[in-house]
């Protein structure tokens, strides 16, 4: 097992956590930074594998698609049964307009 220098700094972990809609408490930040750094250093061994020449790449198989045929859905009651909050028969969430900033 070989390790390259860690590519991770605490600010990077904070930034990535924000992108992932997660919060890393300050007290946990050093441990998260260290663990991610160790994992990414290990992953750094991929640099030693020569990249596959683009010319040799086989064409991708076509993306399989489902037949465009309608089928019965779950029904609104089944969906609402799993919803954490409902008002009447509708799922409810906090207000959206003007609140989504990162």
């Amino acid at each position, binding site marked *: 097992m070989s390790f390259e220098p860690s590519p991770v700094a605490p600010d990077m972990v904070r930034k990535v956590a924000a992108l992932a809609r997660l919060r890393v408490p300050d007290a946990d930040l050093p441990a998260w930074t260290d663990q991610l750094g160790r994992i990414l250093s290990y992953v750094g061994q*991929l640099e030693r594998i020569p990249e596959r020449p683009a010319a040799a790449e086989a064409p991708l198989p076509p993306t399989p698609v489902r037949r465009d045929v309608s089928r019965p859905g779950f029904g609104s009651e089944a969906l609402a049964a799993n919803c954490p909050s409902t008002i009447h028969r509708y799922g409810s969430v906090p207000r959206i307009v003007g609140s989504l900033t990162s």
Partner: protein
Amino acid sequence: MDRPAEAEPTGVLETAAAVAGGARSAVQVLTEALERVEAGDGRVRAFLEVTSALAFEEAKSVDARVAAGERLPLAGVPIAVKDNLWIEGRRATCASRILQGFRPSEDATAVARLRRAGAVFVGRTNMDEFAMGSSTENSSVQTTSNPWDLTRIPGGSSGGSAAAVSARFVPAAIGSDTGGSIRQPAACCGVVGFKPTYGRVSRFGLVAFASSLDQVGPLTRNVRDAARVYSVIAGEDPRDSTSSPEPVGDPEGASGRGFAGKTVGFLAEAEVEGLDPDVARNLGDLKKAFRAAGATVTTVSVPRATAAIAIYYVVASAEASSNLARFDGVRYGPRAEASDLLSLYVETRTSGFGAEVKRRILLGTFALSAGYHEAYYERAMSARQLLSEDFDRAFSRVDALVCPSIPTPAFRLGEKTEDPLSMYLSDVFTVPASLAGLPAITLPSGLSREGLPLGVQILAPRLAEEALFAAAGALEREIAFPQELPPGMA
């Protein structure tokens, strides 16, 4: 163990034959299985939930179908299901707080096919949260023990399924395998575990972890039982566009066919300095066993197999970060208190996911982020393709490839929880087949000096399940693996 005398557990084929033939009823078989769970699961903690009432309804329905003359390949077979597969009316939580209380509205395709074949669902088994782990210690609910030694891990992530079969609670369980999550726990617990070719079994109703890798498969006590369960769940499904239309063939028949005249290649990259001495000794015994079965034994190299863990943790984490973006507290699961939508997402996810899931989401988000995408994700995908081509070259020389399933016997609970990278390396022998989409089976291959199970893994070319089961069946007949109850259950 306080076990009723009439409750001697049997395998899948014997149970199905007895119920189909009228010698036993599905209700009787279920009653005995539930007694074994009641007597032993306090020690093992394989089950998150035992759904007795629903299971009795299913068993009665199977008895009625048998009486009406239906031919059911899994008549009355009690099956445990990993907590990431949908069973209508039961919860499916992925052993995660974020899916607490979630009840799917219908069966997963694999579950529906088992139901149609006469299986009875005993309950939901423990797992690493969202199938991320190699010891089942990442479950947010409970820790599961290995029936061979209750102080050790059962492997993971399908650790509850493996322990339930190993402890003889049920003759078969269903797991999912993304990087080894069926094979590694099966090997740790001394049972058979099979990951089909990518695309053989529909993932509809399997909670997605890494969609280019996930497969559903069986854990059983022997190879023929695995072939029977696999035959039932395999086949094309219009609800999973990656499912293969290729015919499934006759894997059960193939498992009795023998492997004489075929060539087996032992993976050169596995036989390296520093390999666990018990595992190394076992490999020597396995070469003799294959020769005794009439096969030619050689060594083949898959050079990029040594990079498989690095490739896997980039690719699987990247896919997980995308798949798990849907868990945000809006449509299902608990919702954190929040004053606005962004805080709702962040607080729900921060309190709902456990440490390992967060670690992989962060790793995957990093690998896909601007400035790092090429250096990590694209490079890993390129290496994955090269690894796949390495396997193609190897299979031009041999009919099946062999390597250990686990680098060491099951380690102690708590031994690796503080060192994620060390935990990841537990999957060093299972991840390569996942990345290449190959079918792979593990079967118990001997005991370590401490009396713990060792596992051997056999790999075959894509869609060559019949050859794989032929090799596994032949090897199983040469290995005299103990059939009595594991020591932790005695």
